[in-house]
């Protein structure tokens, strides 16, 4: 009996959103204020539209690949000596990025509520969850992501509660004024949108009737709306100077949320972000596993997953302080962003070359 689940485009739209929205969400208003100055929130939709071009390119490559693995295509055209270092670079970048995202999240959790609890306990729990998700396969991962989406999406509504303290005066009539650094700021926004590039690895697991470009685009637009909305509220809720001074403006904003039986639920809401972190970390580990499988062909899949997860858990011991984690996140997200541009172009070139070769053979015949 066919046990394959029939997913729809919306499942992958949700996956895109869950992959993109992460911890940066909590610092985004500060980053926008620091790099784009007054009304910096306006830069988010602008950069998002620019990024759409890259998404269309990625979708085009996925379509051209016709649900075949991009790594199999690379295998066909490159000798081991050349491709293995590339694979190790890809797997390393994605795995370390996933690990640093988890470390970043738990560093904030530790700062908020558990200053005396060692981080390795949290990281260990994350490793165990990630292991079981990875072992359940791609179907389980996508299904889990959709459930996590529904379990976290309500947290957005908490932003509406602070609307009553929103002041248009705080927005000021200036646009992008003050000390600005557009290049660094653009990169910070791009970092916030990272995650969609993994679809190039996922594409071979996605049903043929799913329009990947549509799914990623819709998910990306949804993330853009969420980022823009929350950052806009933060710009109207805090003064510009406050935004520059507060480390995590969105968490601070949630501090004001009150319901009859509970108040200061920032901690509770931030805890729910664990699910998004789990999705991001698992996705990057998955991508790393896919690449490493091309090198270690005979190794059992579960063992490989165990090695990746354990390796990253141990790597987590090297990232303890906020500064260390931030440095690693910055370096590896830059690398991941580079991969998100280079890999699709490289695959396009490979496909074009092999098409030309096929045509030549046909002409010759």
């Amino acid at each position, binding site marked *: *009996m*066919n*046990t394959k*689940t*029939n*997913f*729809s485009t*919306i*499942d992958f739209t*949700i996956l895109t959103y869950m992959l993109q929205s992460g911890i940066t969400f909590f610092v985004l208003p500060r980053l926008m204020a620091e790099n784009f100055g007054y009304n910096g929130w306006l830069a988010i939709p602008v950069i998002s539209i620019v990024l759409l071009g890259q998404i269309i390119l990625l979708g085009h490559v996925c379509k051209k690949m016709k649900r075949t693995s991009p790594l199999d295509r690379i295998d066909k055209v490159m000798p081991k000596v050349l491709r293995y270092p590339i694979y190790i670079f890809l797997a390393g970048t994605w795995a370390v990025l996933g690990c640093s995202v988890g470390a970043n999240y738990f560093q904030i*959790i530790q700062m908020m*509520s*558990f200053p005396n*609890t060692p981080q390795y306990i*949290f990281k260990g*729990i994350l490793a165990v*969850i990630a292991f*079981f*998700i990875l072992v*359940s396969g791609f179907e*389980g991962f*996508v*299904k*889990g992501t*959709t*459930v*996590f989406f*529904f*379990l976290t999406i309500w947290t957005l509504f908490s932003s509406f509660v602070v609307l009553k303290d929103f002041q248009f005066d705080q927005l000021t009539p200036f646009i992008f004024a003050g000390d600005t650094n557009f290049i660094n700021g653009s990169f910070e926004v791009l970092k916030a949108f990272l995650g969609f590039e993994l679809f190039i690895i996922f594409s071979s697991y996605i049903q043929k009737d799913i329009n990947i470009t549509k799914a990623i685009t819709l998910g990306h637009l949804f993330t853009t709306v969420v980022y823009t909305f929350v950052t806009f509220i933060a710009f109207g809720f805090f003064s510009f100077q406050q935004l520059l001074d507060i480390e995590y403006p969105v968490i601070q904003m949630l501090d004001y949320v*009150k319901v*009859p*039986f*509970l*108040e*200061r*639920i920032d*901690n*509770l809401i931030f*805890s*729910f972000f*664990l*699910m998004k972190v*789990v999705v991001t970390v698992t996705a990057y580990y998955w991508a790393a596993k896919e690449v490493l499988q091309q090198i270690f062909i005979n190794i059992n899949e579960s063992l490989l997953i165990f090695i990746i997860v354990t390796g990253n858990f141990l790597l987590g011991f090297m990232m303890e302080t906020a500064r260390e984690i931030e440095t690693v996140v910055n370096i590896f997200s830059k690398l991941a962003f580079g991969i998100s541009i280079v890999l699709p172009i490289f695959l396009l070139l490979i496909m074009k070359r092999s098409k030309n070769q096929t045509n030549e053979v046909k002409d010759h015949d």
Partner: protein
Amino acid sequence: MSIFDFWRNKKKTKEEDKEQKEKKSQDSESLSFHHVLNNFDNCADFNKRTFTSNDGFALFFASLLNTEEFERDVIRSITKMDNHQLREYLAQEHFEEVTTNKDMILGIVAGSVGFFLEGKGYLIEMYGPEGRSIEESETETVITGPHDGFVESAGKNVSLIRKRVRSSHLKCEKMVVGEVSKSEVYFLYIKDIANDQIIEEMKRRVENIETDGVFEANTFVQILEDSPNSVFPQFQTTERPDVACSKLLAGKLILAVDSSPAVISAPSSFVEFFQSPDDYYNRWVIGSSIRLLRFVSFIITILFTALYVSATTFHYEIIPDQLLIPLAESRKAVPFPPIIEALLMEFTIELLREAGARLPTKVGQTIGIVGGIVIGQAAVAAGFTSDILIIAVATSAIASFVIPSYIMSGSIRLIRFGFIILAGILGNIGIVIGITVVAFHLATLTSINKPYLTPITPLILKDFKDVFLRAPYWAMTERPNQADVKNKIRTKVKE
């Protein structure tokens, strides 16, 4: 046990196996009166009847027969017949001629009367032991709607379904399960609606069961499930014919197990366990509100006590000032940390529930009063627990009973303990870790290979009409997608 005992036992087992094999081969051999009779030695309820006017014999279990009907319709006539007349009588179509010992034995244990005449064997079905009359189900009560419930006879249960679904497309296939019990299992489905692959898969699973006996649907479910180690039931069971019929019309398969008052519906989804027939018999707004209440109850059951533990252990800041002072006052005299306090109270509530369920109704009520009022109040007065925790624990317990499925309610009550422990160790993040694990587990479960958490994942927006809310009937024109039905439109069943 010494090695010699082991060797002796092994030898003995081998001999027993050999004997059993020989017996089996004899069973399938051509019919022998003495062999059949020997099979039933030491059976006090077994009857052998001889007749003075002819050479016939009747073998039967009186306890399995409708004796009145048997005496009136069969015995009275046979006692007056000679061999020739009896031969002609047994050739009638309601007698089935059997040629092997095995068929004769199986027929007799299933409630037929076996006749022997001149070396030939015949069976006539006379099954009719007295059973419970049709009554309302005690575990699935409704306020409005039909009040008849299934009984311990699969035949009667099938008739209750057929009475409601008067269609030739309602198919009923029979299989026998249990090496010893030989229990009958009926597969009911509506041809042209139900998915053939699901039916075939279920048949395959039933055929592959090698067990000595099956007596109850909820036991059978645990053998058939996709993930038997999961705490969540993956097939819904119901004691209500109206529910079974609605499942059939939704394209699902119904399994009726003999001697069980519950039937199994497959595939099932997690949300189905929160649905009650009352949702459909009420106006849709009322039905939807009650259903929403159940989902809220589910959240209260698993999270209320856990949140109390988390807040009082790690996150006092989330409690508003007005509530914080009374809470601190009530916890002042409690000598235990919140996690121990909560686990003690939850454990007591479970004790009361279990005691109430096992005792006769009147004593059960006394237990409720003693437990609820005396222990509850005394525990607070003695400084064993805070009164706010009593409120949390009692609300969680009541909320757990709002869930219509008793089996699901039990599962949810159990995972609640996990949440309390996680909250006591890691506070809010512990609770979220618990939710993540449970949610992911639910997302990956399947019911006969179909997603268990449908329509939430994979996301099917159309099917949300009957999940958290019960949409008006004019809006529910299509069958849900989970069963992968052949005919999606509810109004086009061919007759």
